[in-house]
């Protein structure tokens, strides 16, 4: 267990070396360092988690005491329990595979070292986020992953649009982060601590269930989670964030960072249990997001945007699970989603790689025979996403739907509709891109470096449902009535949707025709336009108006004062010995005079 502190440190060190040494390191060295550090971290995590599964005891570990001055002490400590173990395994495991994949995917990029530096930094920040034992450190990781996301979305910064996408991602999540910071302040003010375990212990005694303050605090935290996890109403940044390299989308915008909001709520579930109102909001927010995003995914033509909308929709399911109190189910879906969505993104990346940056699925087609490995990967990924029976996605989504049914049948029905849409759009993507007549010939192969991660993730996407996560000690037990009827209904609906997709897209290839509703969904329910009108324009107007206003004069005054003093004092530094001696004598005389005045 003592190696725990090395897990986030390894990627961090590697990132620092890569940043500093980018000029001297060769490509091979960069790849070895970038991939190897995360690989080592994954191995260490495996060791730590194995040890934990043996003992099963949650513990706090002081990773590093920065300083202890007087009564003041700054410690960086990790809280290690089942949830941490699960998150760390996902981050390092899936992270390693994506790093490995990137080694080839990005091989021809000029900024190879910069890419791996950012990616390693991201892994380190994400690990800090999930290992933190207090909310402040968690916030540090939270902001760290946000910054890395910004850097990686705008990785190809020479294209202005990418820069704009990065900025949008950063600013929109910033809105949520601000809410979260306020929530943290509120918790600190009310409970006097930010240590997560202390907060969870103190909260039930401090607040009655449904207390206004706890509802406010949880809603503010929820704001942060909503921003980071791209839920309504702060979901608009994620489709644009696809401007980054595809492995980045797989790691940050599918498997790990966007699920940080889910993690945050699961981690502080004790607070949320005290605020049933907030939970209700979360559930409805989740299911609404799932539905809306699925509709948008239905009509997209860009392969990555489809996956992005589907990510938003799937995280909506996780929120639904959180909202109905099935925290374990949410984390379970988080894990399986990490597998199959990373798989889908990487497979999409392989297609994009081989077709020279072709993103439009209607210009693909017939790839089934030409890229068999990718096809199998995509098939498995799409099946898991659509929750076809016996894939991992089936098991995790099933639990969520069951929990929703027990909570409120209306939620269940909405969730079921979402599931049908999910199945439809995922197989639409598969059929259009991989079946039918070929439009372009791939002229590159993906090689083992990209095939191995795909293969391993296939295993994960298939068998991930068989995992038993060590979460029983972390969350309150879910109400476990197995209801097979629900299961059968879900299976039927899913298969019907797949059939419908096959019927529609296998026989012929309808063009992405335009139409009112279609365009409305294509533009993501026009939320972007709404925000532009509501916030961006008024804000820019206000900013223009307040340019060079009197507040600045105050600061200018301080500067002028300092400079004037500087000039006066500098005039005394004449360089002449006699003046210096005079100064000394002056000082002595003044001090003596003051003394005599007091003494006599």
């Amino acid at each position, binding site marked *: 267990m003592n190696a725990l502190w090395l897990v986030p440190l390894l990627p961090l060190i590697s990132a620092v070396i890569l940043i*500093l040494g980018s000029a001297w390191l060769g490509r091979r060295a960069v790849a070895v360092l970038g991939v190897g550090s995360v690989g080592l971290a994954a191995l260490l995590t495996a060791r730590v988690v194995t040890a934990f599964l043996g003992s099963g005891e949650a513990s706090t570990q002081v990773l*590093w*005491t*920065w*300083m*202890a*001055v*007087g009564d*003041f002490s700054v410690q960086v400590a990790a809280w290690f329990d089942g949830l941490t173990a699960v998150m760390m395994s996902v981050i390092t495991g899936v992270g390693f595979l994506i790093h490995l994949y990137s080694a080839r995917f990005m091989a021809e990029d000029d900024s190879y070292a910069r890419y791996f530096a950012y990616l390693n930094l991201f892994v380190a920040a994400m690990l800090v986020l999930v290992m933190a034992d207090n909310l402040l450190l968690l916030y540090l990781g939270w902001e760290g992953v946000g910054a890395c996301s910004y850097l990686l979305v705008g990785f190809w910064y020479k294209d202005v649009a990418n820069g704009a996408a990065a900025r949008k991602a950063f600013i929109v999540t910033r809105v949520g982060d601000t809410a979260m910071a306020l929530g943290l302040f509120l918790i600190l003010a009310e409970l006097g601590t930010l240590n997560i375990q202390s907060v969870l212990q103190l909260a039930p005694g401090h607040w009655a269930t449904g207390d206004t303050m706890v509802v406010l605090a949880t809603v503010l935290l929820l704001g942060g989670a909503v921003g980071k996890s791209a839920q309504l109403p702060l979901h608009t940044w994620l489709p644009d964030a696809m401007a980054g390299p595809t492995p980045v989308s797989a790691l940050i915008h599918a498997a790990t960072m966007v699920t940080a909001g889910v993690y945050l709520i699961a981690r502080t579930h004790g607070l949320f249990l005290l605020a049933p109102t907030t939970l209700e909001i979360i559930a409805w927010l989740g299911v609404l997001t799932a539905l809306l995003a699925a509709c948008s995914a239905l009509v997209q033509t860009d392969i990555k945007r489809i996956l992005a909308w589907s990510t938003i929709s799937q995280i909506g399911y996780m929120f639904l699970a959180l909202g109905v109190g099935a925290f374990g189910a949410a984390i379970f879906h988080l894990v399986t989603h990490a597998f199959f969505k990373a798989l889908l993104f990487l497979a999409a990346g392989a297609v994009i790689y081989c077709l020279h940056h072709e993103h439009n699925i209607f210009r693909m087609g017939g790839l089934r025979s030409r890229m068999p490995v990718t096809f199998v990967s995509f098939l498995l990924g799409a099946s898991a996403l659509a929750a076809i029976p016996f894939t991992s996605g089936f098991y995790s989504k099933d639990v969520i739907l069951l929990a929703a049914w027990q909570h409120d049948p209306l939620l269940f029905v909405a969730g079921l509709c979402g599931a049908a849409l999910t199945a439809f759009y995922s197989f639409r993507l598969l059929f259009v891109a991989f079946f039918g007549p070929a439009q372009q010939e791939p002229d590159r192969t993906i090689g083992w470096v990209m095939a191995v991660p795909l293969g391993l993730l296939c295993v994960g996407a298939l068998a991930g449902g068989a995992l038993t996560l060590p979460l029983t000690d972390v969350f309150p037990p879910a109400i476990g009535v197995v209801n097979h009827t629900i299961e059968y209904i879900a299976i039927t609906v899913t298969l019907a949707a797949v059939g419908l997709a096959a019927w529609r897209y296998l026989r012929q290839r309808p063009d992405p025709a335009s139409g009112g509703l279609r365009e409305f969904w294509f533009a993501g329910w026009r939320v972007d336009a709404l925000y532009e009108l509501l916030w961006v324009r008024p804000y820019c107007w206000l900013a223009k108006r307040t340019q060079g206003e009197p507040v600045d004069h105050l600061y200018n005054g301080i500067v002028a004062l*300092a*400079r004037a*003093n*500087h000039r006066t*004092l*500098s005039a*005394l*530094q004449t*360089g002449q*010995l006699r*003046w*210096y*001696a005079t*100064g*000394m004598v*002056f*000082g*002595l005389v*003044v*001090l*003596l005079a*003051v*003394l*005599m005045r*007091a*003494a*006599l």
Partner: protein
Amino acid sequence: MNSGMWQALSPLLALSGGTVVLMLQIAFHRNPRWSVAITQLSLLLGAGLLLWLWPGSDYQSLLLRVDGYALLLNLLFILAAAVTCWLSPAYIALRSEQSGEFFLLLLLATIGAMILAQAVHVASLLLGLELLGVALYALIAYPDRSLLPLEAAVKYLVLSGAASATLLFGFALAYAGTGQLAFTGLSESLALAGSGAYTLVMAASVMIICGLAFKLSLVPFHMWTPDVYQGAPSPVTGFLATVSKGAVFAVFLRAFLETGAYQFPIILNSLAAIAVASMLVGNLLALRQDNVKRLLAYSSIAHMGYLLIVLLVCSDPANHDLAVEAALFYLVAYTVTTLAAFAVLTWPGYEQYQGPEHTELKHLSGLLWHHPLAGLLMLVAMLSLAGIPLTAGFVGKFYLFSAAVTGPHWLLLGSLVVGSGIGIYYYLRVVYYLLRRDDNHALLPNAGWHESCLAVVLLAAVLGLGIAPQSLIGWIQSIL
């Protein structure tokens, strides 16, 4: 004469033996390499003996006291001297025909500093101070091919002489008032002294404070600092800024505590005034300074002002330990950081042996891109001096801050904050120059392993003390 005494004095004796050997070597076989080797060896021996003495030494004689406080500071001075010695040979060889005596003087100055850290008697204080001072005059004037060092040395000699005279006058008055010269003896006599002696002793204290304040370059005794810093050869400036000031502060703190001077509000008020003035004036003077050495001189005025807060905090016995801890940590952090900055300034000095050193800001322009290691070291040093987190300087400043908030020192705290705020401006100005993309950079020779090693060590020290200060803090706490 017992074995305890020999043990306690062995580091001093090792260095003294080193000077004798060095003198003979210079007399019979003048060779700079040998001189450097002998100097480093005796420093190494001294450091080794200090570590051997480490935990439990508490030897006390009439003149000297070898306790944990003295040991830690002695170790610091020896290491700083070793760094100076490591930096100097190439620099001095270009600027003087004979470099052997440079190291002799360096050793002597180090011995003086060590004695100061151990002094518990007015006589040993003066002895150490003069040994340090006289060696420094010669060191400052060492390059025999330019005028600036000579000017600096003369200024320092004259003013320092005046300050020493003031100091001596103070001692004489103190003796007249109390009939005592040992610190503890003074403290006993002060407690008994009548009202007549009181005035005498207060006048003595003020004069002693003035004398020491000169050496620490506190306002208004600070005016020599920029000229001497600029004129002195860079390695010597580094030594002067760290070892000389550290040693004088060490003896100041010890004298202040052991003589019981902290009981007198007049002394406290004078010190507070000096501290506030130093923090503000030092930082304001540095504001638009274009010469890095002068800038560091002004910044050292401010830093000594910050450090003076400790003296006022430890006047309350409850906070005594925290204050001394803060002082020691701050001294270590300041020494390491300042040495790092002067190491970088020494580098360009290797090339231009004619004319003044190239230490204007514009000469540092783009350093980070042309010489990443040197640039990085300077960058980290500046950030540390500015007190940016994760550097040694931040922890030191935080220590001072947490010591100061224990008592009603709001004026001092305010000055600390305002001073640090102004400070950030000019430190970042250096950083701005370091980061500029400029092409006019043929000034710096490529770093050899010699300089690179030192740069890496100093970099690791500044960052290490900022990232994991707890080991040093624990060490300091264990010896107090």
